């Protein structure tokens, strides 16, 4: 096993203190570097909870989580921020773009936080917007863009710092089927280009099928490997 993948051991996450509901009830999994994996499960099964832990946005109640060589469960909040900045890129269902900033400025944010100079920022952000097919829309604000275009901006932003791990939480959940299909297409292409480890969270088995060979099933806070019959 390489040290650069994702390694989870007995991950527990419960909300509302000790007696609260367990959203994750002992998750164990190993994802190797460069692997593309889909997590499938019903709504409320704990998929987003798991992804937030992987994204460094939240901490497990107990258990160990090592991603790209970092032990996330023992990082300080400053180190966590650093991890989010340069190791992981996240695409959300609701796009999460800053409304006051244009497409270009939104993609620029991670570069600013990384301390890149203006020249480099403009060049890289433009290049990524080009890659997601939005070179003609770079000075538009989110409210001037369609849902699909907004998600493309979000994808560019997630990838602009060239993260080792890319996480997507229902990236097509807010889009109609045609647009969703285009976004899936784009994600597939980009994942082929970058050698990043890719984790897709979705309740849509078709999309999971199209993007990822390996599929994991989330059920009541536990993760199991999907055998081929399960979706047949």
């Amino acid at each position, binding site marked *: 096993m390489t040290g650069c993948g994702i390694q989870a051991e007995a991950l527990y996450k419960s909300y509302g203190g000790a007696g609260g509901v367990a959203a994750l009830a002992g998750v164990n999994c190993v994802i190797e570097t460069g692997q593309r994996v889909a997590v499938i499960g019903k709504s409320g099964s704990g998929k987003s909870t798991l992804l937030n832990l992987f994204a460094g946005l939240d901490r497990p109640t107990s258990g160990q989580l090592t991603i790209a060589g970092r032990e996330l469960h023992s990082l300080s909040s400053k180190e966590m921020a*650093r991890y*989010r900045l340069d190791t992981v890129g996240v695409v*959300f269902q609701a796009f999460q773009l800053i409304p006051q900033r244009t497409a270009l400025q939104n993609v620029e944010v991670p570069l600013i*936080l990384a301390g890149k100079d203006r020249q480099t920022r403009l060049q890289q952000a433009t290049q990524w917007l080009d890659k997601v097919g939005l070179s003609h829309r770079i000075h538009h604000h989110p409210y001037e863009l369609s849902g699909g275009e907004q998600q493309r901006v979000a994808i560019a932003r997630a990838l602009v710092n060239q993260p080792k791990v890319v996480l997507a939480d229902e990236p097509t959940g807010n889009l109609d089927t045609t647009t969703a299909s285009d976004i899936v297409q784009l994600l597939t292409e980009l994942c082929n280009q970058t050698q990043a480890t890719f984790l897709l969270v979705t309740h849509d088995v078709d999309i999971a099928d199209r993007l990822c060979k390996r599929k994991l099933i989330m059920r009541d806070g536990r993760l199991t490997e999907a055998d081929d019959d399960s979706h047949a």
Partner: protein
Amino acid sequence: MIRTRDIWSMAAHNLWQRKLRTLLNLLGIVVGCVVLLMTAAGVSGVKNAIRILFDSAEAARQIGVLPDRNAKGDPPKDVTEVTAEMSEERRERIVFQLEQKWRAENRQPGAWEITPQQIKELSALPHVLSVVPGVNVPCVVSIGLEEEASAEQGETPKVSNGITGIDLGSSLSAGRVIAGDMLGSDSSNEVLLHEFVAYQLGYQSDPQLKQLLGKQLHVEYQPRRGSLANIFNMLVEEWGQLSVQELGQQMSFMDALHQLINELDSTSLTSNQKQLLRQLFPKGELGTPAQLQPIQRSFRIRGIVRDGNDDSLARLFRGHYQGGYGGIIVSSDVASEIHLQISENQSFHEAVVTVDSTSNLARVIEQVEASGTRTFSALRILENMDRHVDESAWIVLGIAAAILFTASIGISNTLLVSVLERTPEFGILKSVGATNSMLLRLMVCEGAILGLLGAVIAIVTSLAAAWIGHGMIRQYVESRLNTDIASTLFQFSMWPMLAVICVSVFVCVLASILPAWRASRLDPIVAMRRT
């Protein structure tokens, strides 16, 4: 990690995105800063204007000097000991009275008058423009007429008045001239005549006054007759510090006087005193003192003057000492010469010291008093004036501080609301790698920019307002005081501007700390869910 420059530009970008709120915040800061600035500028300007105004009034720059006859230093302990039972306040008052009594009883011999030497020393002090010894020599004046004219008119009228000296450089004196000119620089034979003396002399109408110019004025004054007290003083000085009883025990008063007159040349009396004694007792014997011959002088009339009290500012200082005016006005040098000619102890009773500026008044007074004299001046009035300006300035500064404080609460509030509104944004920033401290700095920077911008706008506004306001206030003050104000009423110097910038930025940063702290503590997942 993130460059400081980018934090500033992000902060500026955020303020720019919310123009209306930024504008409202700025308004509060600007008003506070303007009041603060105008007060500071106004105080130094008004103080300066008052100084210039007072400096233009000669009376405010003058110090009346009187010899201080009382003993210096503290009396011995036993003199001021009050053992009787009484309240502390009353004991203090009694002790004060005892001290005064001791000083009066222990007057220093020799320190009775202001000597020509002391006058010279006073003139040499820094910042002293002139020292005019107080002179008022009683005299009788008449107008000198050509022979025929006097034959026609018979007896010319004679008027009793006094000879007084003036400072030739004084603008106060110059302002009093109503006909003719002020005394010239070489004026040993010239005189200014008071209009009332002229009136009494028969020159009453305006054309008649003009006729007086250039005419000769005959002045007649008596050498001062030595009073018995003066003679006794001379005796005491000659025979040592003896009391009347002691003198009486040694020899009779008349014997002493007789001996003094006989051995006049070998005494240590001044030449004037000797001369006076010789005139009184011409045969070297005691008897009825002889009648002294009056001294006569004549002067050319150079101008007619009126009383000098109607200067509006001089009136302000009327409470402080001013030497008495005689109606026969000559230069201070001539007046001193006449005074010394008839005075038996070669000294003056008083003098007026004119200083270059009211700001040097205190320093000069200190030095003058160090030479053993008492002084009277407008110093207290000036100090009170300065204090009143300062006091009212503090009140206005307090109001400005209150405005700034209110503005800062407003800023804090709007920044807090802004944090609530921008919660998703902060969540997003955190999710892509912003640290707590970066968000904290971002918000504080926004506050600092508001403060800086507000202060700069305030400075520009104040400069403009001062420019407009100065014209208006100046017009008002000048019409009220009838005087020119040469200075600017609002004086902006570097440090109040820097201070205002610092205060403004400080207040705004302070106001942004709580909102900034809240922003930095946000949980990114919760924050993002608020879209």
